[in-house]
């Protein structure tokens, strides 16, 4: 009670709005609604893909879709085996990651362990610019520069091919790997490096035996996320990899990826509700699940191996 008196004496100088408690509650609900929107988005994605895909799977069995090796939804004889699209996607992604993983990791190590501060301050934004270039631009680059250049080396290569799309995709996701890996390595405390140097380690030994192992989870997850990104990439492959659904391991051939197929069909005049129209949702659904699984694995890796410093 005395306390209450105390508070009243305070209020002569302090004017605090009385409604602040209700205000606090309201604000909390509004913010919660914002957060829930993201859940709604996921639900929306799944529902719209499943609902539209449902129509497709009413006509084509899931088994045929997943195991068929020929994809020809428009031209007769129609076939709805998605494997050629999946294969094309994988081919491009594998080429991309084979290029981007070593180069990206190398760049990351260079930047975090070797580069002078000034160099890093210049090079990092440059690489980030590379990551920020729209994929359409990469498509243009692949088509108008990389393919012609490759053709000089491999004369019988056709214009639309998996190799140049994959390589350019590699260039595109390389900065993602280097940035994420470098972040992981930079978050390894300076004190660990000092500890190793003080034991007489060379720079390389510090990098390879202390920093990389300590940042391994970040590095691996950067790889996984980069692959997932490559799988979902659209415009580059639409422009440069061709529109020929074909199950092949030959990078010099023209192929079609899942994403490129969706674009191809969107650009056409397929009527809402037609089987052709619904194919894109079926492919979209598959694409969504593949990337979802990869992303889940990626975040799992991070969580499982994350080392808590400080």
């Amino acid at each position, binding site marked *: 009670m005395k306390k209450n008196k105390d508070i009243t004496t305070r209020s002569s100088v302090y004017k605090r709005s009385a409604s602040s408690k209700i205000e606090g509650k309201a604000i909390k609900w509004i913010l919660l609604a914002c957060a829930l929107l993201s859940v709604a988005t996921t639900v929306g994605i799944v529902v719209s893909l499943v609902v539209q895909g449902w129509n497709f799977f009413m006509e084509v069995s899931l088994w045929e879709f997943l195991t068929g090796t020929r994809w020809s939804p428009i031209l007769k004889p129609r076939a709805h085996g998605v494997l050629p699209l999946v294969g094309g996607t994988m081919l491009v992604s594998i080429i991309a990651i084979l290029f981007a993983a070593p180069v990206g990791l190398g760049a990351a190590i260079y930047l975090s362990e070797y580069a002078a501060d000034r160099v890093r301050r210049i090079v990092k934004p440059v690489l980030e610019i590379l990551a920020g270039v729209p994929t359409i631009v990469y498509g243009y680059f692949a088509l108008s520069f990389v393919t012609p250049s490759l053709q000089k080396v491999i004369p019988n290569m056709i214009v639309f091919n998996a190799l140049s799309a994959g390589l350019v995709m590699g260039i595109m996701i390389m900065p993602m790997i280097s940035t994420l890996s470098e972040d992981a390595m930079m978050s390894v405390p300076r004190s660990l490096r000092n500890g190793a140097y*003080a034991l007489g380690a060379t720079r390389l030994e510090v990098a390879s035996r202390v920093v990389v192992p300590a940042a391994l989870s970040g590095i691996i997850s950067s790889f996984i996320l980069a692959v997932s990104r490559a799988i979902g990439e659209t415009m580059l492959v639409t422009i440069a990899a061709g529109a020929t659904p074909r199950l092949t391991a030959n990078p010099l051939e023209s192929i079609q990826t899942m994403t490129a197929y969706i674009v191809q069909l969107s650009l056409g005049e397929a009527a809402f509700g037609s089987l052709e129209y619904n194919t894109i949702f079926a492919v979209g659904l598959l694409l969504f699940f593949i990337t979802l699984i990869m992303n889940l694995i990626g975040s799992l890796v991070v969580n499982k191996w994350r080392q*808590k410093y400080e």
Partner: protein
Amino acid sequence: MENEITQVTDKEISKNIIISARNLNVYYGNFRAVKDVNLDVKKNQVLSLIGPSGCGKSTVLRCFNRMNDLILSAEVGGSILYNGINLYSAEVDATEIRSSIGMVFQKPNPFPKSIYDNVAFGLRINGYQGDMDEAVEKSLKQAALWDEVKDRLKDSGLTLSGGQQQRLCIARTLAIEPDIILMDEPCSALDPIATLAIEELIRELITKYTIIIVTHNMQQAARVSDETAFLMVGEDRAGYLVETGDTQQIFTNPKEERTESYITGRFS
């Protein structure tokens, strides 16, 4: 006759000095952080560096194993004489130095590896050929950690408590059998109990090693060291050496007014 004796003593003393700084100057870019420091460190003793924050204690300490090389803007003038060789002369390799002059840091920084691998790290990179298990055990014993960890050598070093981590870092340093161990405020992140354990460890280690320790805690310097060097910051913000002497003398009867003021907590 008496003269002769003095000479012998002189020689004895200089024989006892294991490392010394001569006209040490350290610049960070244009800023002179340390000015004309001359310091002798006696073998198998603990020398502590004390002084107000920013007076260059850490900077001086890092000169002794060329850790300053890792700071790009840092430039060192003068010389560090170790076994008669200037560590800053061209032909000396910093990496090599660091396996003879180890260092322990303010915050315990075990590698995120197993306890065993932490201790073995220095040995492995240096291409140690002997029995690794034995070497690891020996170092952990020296660091008074063996009994606490012998059943969990596979566990990550990070699972240890702060004080144990610091002793692990000391064990790691001992493994490569350095001559000298530099310690930069090794207890400032630890609680009093862990601090005491480290302090006792330091006193035990000097039978084999020479230790230079930077500490903010004057009482720690008093407890732990044989000699104490007091540094201060000049008007030009450069740190300089005010006085070196027997720890007991410094703490009961320092020669310099400035040392007295600092030690008794009076500052102008």
